[in-house]
């Protein structure tokens, strides 16, 4: 359903979409039924000459069941939705799989800095690759992300992954994703962060293993050079 508009580019994207579809079917059916009954009653009980309204209190059990039976049904469907919603929520947010690599995502007014582990696969080493507004990841690799903010609240949102997480200054918030579809997708800041809020788009580049290795070779500079570019600021890989 959502995949009509946005591709499914992570492992859990399809789960989120299925959940949305399930809810759509359930509440859609209820919605249509309720609207149908409502319109039918309006048409059926229009005022006619000489016909008085019925005196129905709704306090008798035989009348009340017209409301209480649907009411129990709502309860049952609520349980179904809660169970489905929490299963997806658990997968995406609660139980993180063992990561193969970690990226650091730093948000600030109004830019994203991404710290890639570099050829050695570890953060905070000399060969880390820092980029601004472009995140490079490898297809079918499980990533842990560490989300930071330097100033105000931001939100790291990747619609194609069905992933969203606010960044809070003073905290590191971790999460995970596993890209499945090669391509370039939008990264949004989804929490208002000041006058440049609309001006902090970024892109995530999901690369095949070979393309990603090539990118690493190109940008994974020698340790000595890495120290220099690191000191010169962020954005060496643009």
């Amino acid at each position: 359903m959502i995949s009509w508009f946005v591709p499914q580019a992570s492992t859990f994207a399809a789960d989120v979409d299925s959940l949305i579809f399930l809810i759509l079917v359930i509440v859609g059916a209820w919605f249509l039924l309720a609207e149908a009954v409502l319109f039918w009653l309006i048409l059926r009980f229009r005022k006619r000459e000489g016909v008085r309204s019925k005196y129905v209190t709704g306090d008798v059990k035989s009348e009340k069941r017209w409301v209480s039976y649907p009411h129990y049904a709502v309860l049952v469907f609520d349980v179904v939705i809660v169970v489905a919603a929490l299963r997806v929520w658990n997968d995406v947010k609660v139980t993180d799989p063992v990561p193969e690599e970690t990226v650091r995502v730093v948000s600030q007014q109004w830019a994203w800095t991404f710290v890639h582990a570099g050829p050695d696969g570890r953060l905070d080493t000399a060969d880390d690759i820092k980029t601004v507004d472009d995140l490079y990841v490898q297809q079918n690799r499980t990533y842990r992300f560490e989300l930071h903010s330097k100033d105000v609240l931001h939100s790291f949102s990747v619609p194609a992954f069905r992933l969203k997480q606010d960044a809070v200054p003073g905290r590191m918030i971790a999460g995970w994703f596993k890209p499945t579809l090669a391509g370039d997708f939008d990264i949004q800041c989804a929490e208002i962060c000041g006058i440049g809020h609309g001006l902090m788009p970024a892109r995530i580049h999901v690369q095949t293993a070979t393309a990603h290795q090539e990118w690493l070779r190109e940008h994974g500079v020698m340790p000595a050079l890495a120290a220099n570019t690191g000191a010169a600021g962020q954005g060496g890989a643009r």
Partner: protein
Amino acid sequence: MSHEHAAAHEPSGLLKYVWSTDHKMIAFQYLFTGMAMALIGGFTVYVFRMQLAFPGEAVPLFGRVSASSYNALVTSHGSIMIFWVAMPVLIAAFGNYLIPLMVGCDDMAFPKVNRLSFQIFFLSAVLLTASFFVPGGAFGGAWTAYPPLSTSGVYNQTPIGATMWLVAVALEFVAFLLGGINFITTTMNSRAPGMRMFDIPIVVWMIVIASVLFMASVGPLVAGAVMLLFDQVIGTGFYDPARGGDPVLWQHLFWFFGHPEVYVVLLPAMGIVAEVMAVHARKRLFAYRTIVYTAVATSIISFFVWAHHQFVAGIDPRMASLFSVTTLIISIPVAEMVFVYIATLYGGAISLTTPMLWALAFLVEFLWGGVTGIFLGAAGSDIYFHDTYFVTAHFHYTFFPIAFIAGFAGITHWFPKMFGRMMDERLGKIHFWGTIISFNLIFLPLFITGAAGDHRRIFDYSGFPDLNLPYLQNLRIMATYALLAMIAFQVVFFYNFARSLRGGAVAGANPWKATTLEWLAASPPPHGNFPVMPTVYRGPYEYGVPDRADDFWPQYEPAGPAGQEPRLGAAGHGPAPSGAMAAPER
């Protein structure tokens, strides 16, 4: 306590418009201030939707929209429509106007507190409006005012506007706390003799429950607002992580109030709709007590759902599971309430008058808002929808029916009582259909753009390749055109309103043949309301009672040919007839 006595204190001439203690005059003050603020709120949305449809082009009557003015416009739109339109019109205007008339007393329990309430409210509205004109402009950190953006002028670049916004909101809370005291006290202590708890019209119940809910929820936010003010003005660090504070603390305090606030405005709207439906369908409300109980249940549960606004805000994800469950639980009493309203139509004799069209439209449209909320309450799908236009569309399908559809239902229904004249039905229906159709054409496209990933509060999507697509832009343009149409149709309403004030057909005391006490008073009711204080003999919705000549049996009418004895004195759990006359001596 006679009305002559009260009238002696009424200021004369123009002064009565600013210094009156008459609940009806204060209601009009709230109503007209709310309508004026709705014009400002409407103008802000006109400007920013024009920017979204035609980014970078000069907007007629405004000019080019900068990123900072875009944020200020969005923030002001949300704040104004909730705090300065929905609350004053639904709770303060209808609460003030209807409660004394419907419970059968001559004025509020504390008329001077009532006047003070409006004066503080008016001050808050002036302060908020003035913030547009200070250096840096109005606050642009969204109506939720999340710190650290809201605390620091370095971050939000509107240091003066941010503080004015905060003080204005705090003053507005004070005004509604004062008003709520009156609504609750008057309903509990000043009811006409014979009016037991379950003889109180639903709209009065709803406003009272909403006032209790407001009082119980607003405290934490006031504390939060004081801390925010200190952070802004004297440099404390309550929300500053560098100094041991926590930005997420504000979110908890804000939404602890913010979610009950939805029901604070929803319940009075549901109350208005109930009154209008009963009268124009000639039906006793289906399961009256169930409506009261579900309203109370909804209010209580609404204290346990707040963190569903914060699923992805950095709270412990296990906590989100809990709030997902409570959020879906609250759908149960609300669904029950909607079912009961629909069931009320069964067996009715429905006249599709303008107020009835609005009341029915409330149900039709609110259902959209209700069912789309499930997508957001379910934590798993909220990950995707959070902070997208899907959310915007969802809550406009709740707030627009609440603030405007129910508001128009109430205004068109009680206009004859308020001003003694009927509104024009033909103009009323043109306004109705124009507004309803354009409303749907604004927000149905926004569900789609939200599903496609449009995130909120973005003044220009051209930097986002996945969103800068022709079909999405066409939907944005369509929503904007529909908004222009909706604004244009409001001219019909204002014209109808103004013309009917003098030129409408004379209404008489009870033009709709309704049963509640306000229709016993003259139209418009004089200061003091009733020539002879009424006594109540039965419940508020006795329509279609068999074996009677009329299809309605007013609350104030002594037992007729059917031979039912007046219940005077029989009310074991209600106020004793003499004690219920305890309208305040002044």
